[in-house]
């Protein structure tokens, strides 16, 4: 089943998207954040958020749902002045991005490290990362001040 639902909640002022938790959804997710922000904000900042959201969703597909494709990812974008908050909710296994220690840059080439760069990317680019496990759901939130 393909599920792709985008809504705008004017009362609470956010945009949301629900997609199946699979790699095929990544492009839809990236398009969603770009289309939501590109007319109002600096293109480099929009790309940075696109990269971070993509990294978190790649991790959810791989680790939270373990690529079993039985779940969804809900994304909400909240804009308040120059602060963008992106909230990502999934119902997979607990996956706390804050618990992962990314590899040291200087060890990457030496040890031919291919993975674990995504979390390092999010930690480098975003101003704040929040995580909560609530009612069998992972709630990850990234916050970035933009131009």
């Amino acid at each position, binding site marked *: 089943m393909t599920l792709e639902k985008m809504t705008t909640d004017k009362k609470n002022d956010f945009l949301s998207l629900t997609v199946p938790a699979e790699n095929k959804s990544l492009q839809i997710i990236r398009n969603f954040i770009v289309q939501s922000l590109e007319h109002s904000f600096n293109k*480099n900042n929009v*790309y940075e958020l*696109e990269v971070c959201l993509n990294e978190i969703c*790649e991790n959810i597909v791989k680790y939270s749902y373990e690529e079993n494709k039985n779940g969804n990812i809900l994304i909400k974008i909240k804009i308040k002045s120059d602060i963008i908050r992106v909230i990502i909710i999934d119902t997979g296994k607990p996956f706390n991005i804050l618990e992962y220690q990314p590899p040291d840059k200087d060890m990457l080439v030496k040890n031919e*490290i291919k*993975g674990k760069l*995504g979390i390092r*990317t999010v930690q480098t680019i975003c101003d704040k990362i929040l995580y909560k496990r609530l009612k069998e759901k992972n709630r990850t939130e990234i916050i970035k001040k933009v131009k």
Partner: protein
Amino acid sequence: MNLILEEKKNADGVVIVSVKGFIDTSTSSAFEDVIKKLYSESATKIILDLSNAEFISSAGWGVMIAYLKKMRNGGGDIKLASMNEKVERVFKLMEFDNLIDSFKTLDEALKSYKG
């Protein structure tokens, strides 16, 4: 367009791989297959022409980093050319510019192999 990779070898043995589209976790294995094949053929002098690369996630950067040492030990390298502004910005924010040589143009990247 997801990912299209075109290879071209010049007279100096430098292989230019043109990357068109995006590299994320859904396309990184195709990207890695090309790099792995070149390495297995001892084609270690690589330039990735990124002028048409719209998006690169950590899955793509990871492949480049994982093969850097192999290519360098084989007498070559992986060099990047013509990144667009937004991709280059993340490349620099991540400090990958300390690990991988990058050039504004393809010509500059080609010249660097002659120097």
